[in-house]
């Protein structure tokens, strides 16, 4: 399980960075989204995967007796997902706006700011 996840995270990071390096605006956003998903899975993996041991202390005990699944990474992922959701919706509106104003999808042609004014 861990090995498959680790490979998948690697592929997601690589794909994300490759997409960011493309010249198209849409691929840029897709790259950012994929990269974010890779990061979220990484938190999940590094929080250690424990199967079938919810972090609930049984009524008869005071502290955890057994191995348990760490709930903190899930809280972190949830927060990160919500944040990246907000940022991605902003990004999509931004590229729509950029496409309307600049009238191109090619990042190489976005060079108005390099001209002296």
């Amino acid at each position, binding site marked *: 399980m861990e090995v498959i996840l680790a490979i998948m995270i690697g592929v997601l990071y690589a794909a994300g960075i490759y997409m*960011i390096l493309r010249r198209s*605006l849409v691929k*840029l956003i897709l790259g*950012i989204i994929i*990269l*974010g998903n890779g*990061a*979220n899975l*990484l*938190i999940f*993996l*590094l*929080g*250690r995967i424990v199967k079938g041991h919810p972090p609930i202390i049984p009524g008869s005990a005071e502290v955890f007796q057994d191995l348990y699944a*760490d709930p*903190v*990474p899930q809280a*972190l992922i949830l*927060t*990160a997902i919500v*944040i990246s959701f*907000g*940022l991605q919706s*902003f*990004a999509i509106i*931004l*590229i729509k*706006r*950029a496409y309307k*104003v*600049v009238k191109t999808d090619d*990042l190489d042609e*976005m*060079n*108005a*700011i*390099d001209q*002296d*004014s």
Partner: protein
Amino acid sequence: MTQQIVLYPLLLQLSLSILLMFFWNKIEIQKIISIAGSVISVAVSVWLFAYIWEHGTQTVQAGNWKAPFGIIFVADTLSATLVLLTAISGLAVASFSSASVVAARLRFGYFPILHFLLLGLNGAFLTGDIFNLYVWFEIIIISSFVLITLGGEKAQVEGAVKYFTLNILASTIFLTAIAVLYGLTGALNMADLSVKVAAIENRGLVEITAMLFLIAFGTKAAAFPLYFWLPASYHTPPSAVSAIFAGLLTKVGVYALIRVFTLIFVGDAFLDNIITVMAILTLFSGGLGALVQNNLRKVFSYLIICHIGYMIAGLGLFTEVAIAGTIFYLIHDIVVKTNLFMVSGLMYRIRGTNSVQAMGGLYHDYPKLSLLIAIPLFSLVGIPPLSGFWPKISLLKAGFVAEQWWLVGAIIFASLITLFIIAKIWAGIVWKDKPVAEMKSNFRYYANLSNLKKTQMIAPIVFLSLVSLYIGFGAEHIQQISSRIATELMDNQQYVNAVLHNVQNMK
């Protein structure tokens, strides 16, 4: 009353931005609330600073979850100082933007977002939890995205795409770094991390994690070779927005670098060397970049990068004197950079252009204004006894002691090049005769503004210039503050004790 004092700056900014949203279309009321609120925020920050100065590091545990389990807010002297500077810059920009930003932009929630940005900045300075720091960073960048795109002109949108991509990338790397660090230690509280990271035996893994943090914060701080988003975007939004960005956004990156590399990843010669090399190259590339620009705001953008080098230099040397120099430079730089971008906005209002070539004759038309803008310009260069001079002494001294000759050379070179650039700008916009240019018909020139608007634009520049003069002439006080912060940072046990064992460090 003083138990929760750490949270007051945050609560104030949050309630201000919520309050401002209730007056969505009433710009005049928003202006009054924003300026009045910023004055209160300066008062609260002064109070916080005085309290911390008197009673040592304060902490607030959210929801009473004992550290290291809950999210904790920590105000040590560094945090309190930066919160105070944020409030000062915020006040200046609130006043400046109510006169210089056009109503069409203000109508789309400019002021609420500005206060959200200030909330994020205060939060980042005050939090003691690394994941919470990430959340505050996101609040800062999402507010800055809105501010940078507000208006939606062509250049702005293009700049925003670049700004957006690289900042998101940096955030993702930051998140990755947190994930790896959590996997290594199982902790998120920075004081707890400090203890646990020191105990890890596999130093290679720690170094890699530290490098991830360095890349993430280096991008935010605009250090070489990660600064390319900055000159591509900072000159595109209205100058009031650039002013708050220039003063505070890159400095949050510097703050995070200082915090992480004095608390969590300490005493690693390899990392210190990398930071020193980054500092040297930042000083060179920023200075040389500024040299070839003609657009006033692009020149200042490159100077931001150049001067980030000074702050990182102190961190790379990592001695008490060097850190004190870094902190002093940070204090000086926040005030001066905010002021400079407001000056550039004022020049744009006066002449209707950003090009240094097309400006001129300021001394002929506005002699008093020329005298005023001389203060921030020459403070930046650091002509004694103005404010930029003092921290450089500490940095040079630390550089000589550590025998880092390249760094010493870079610091001197960057100072020289800054002097040359500022002299060029001074000659170009103040002394040179005004070139013959047609007046734009639909542009609101400074001369045609009402007296109230003129005051709203000049007053913040005067205010920040006075603060700069105080930093220069009252250098002894600032040096005291910087030395105390440096002592606190070098001896991170104090911070750890305050957070984990709730020990008050009475002075």
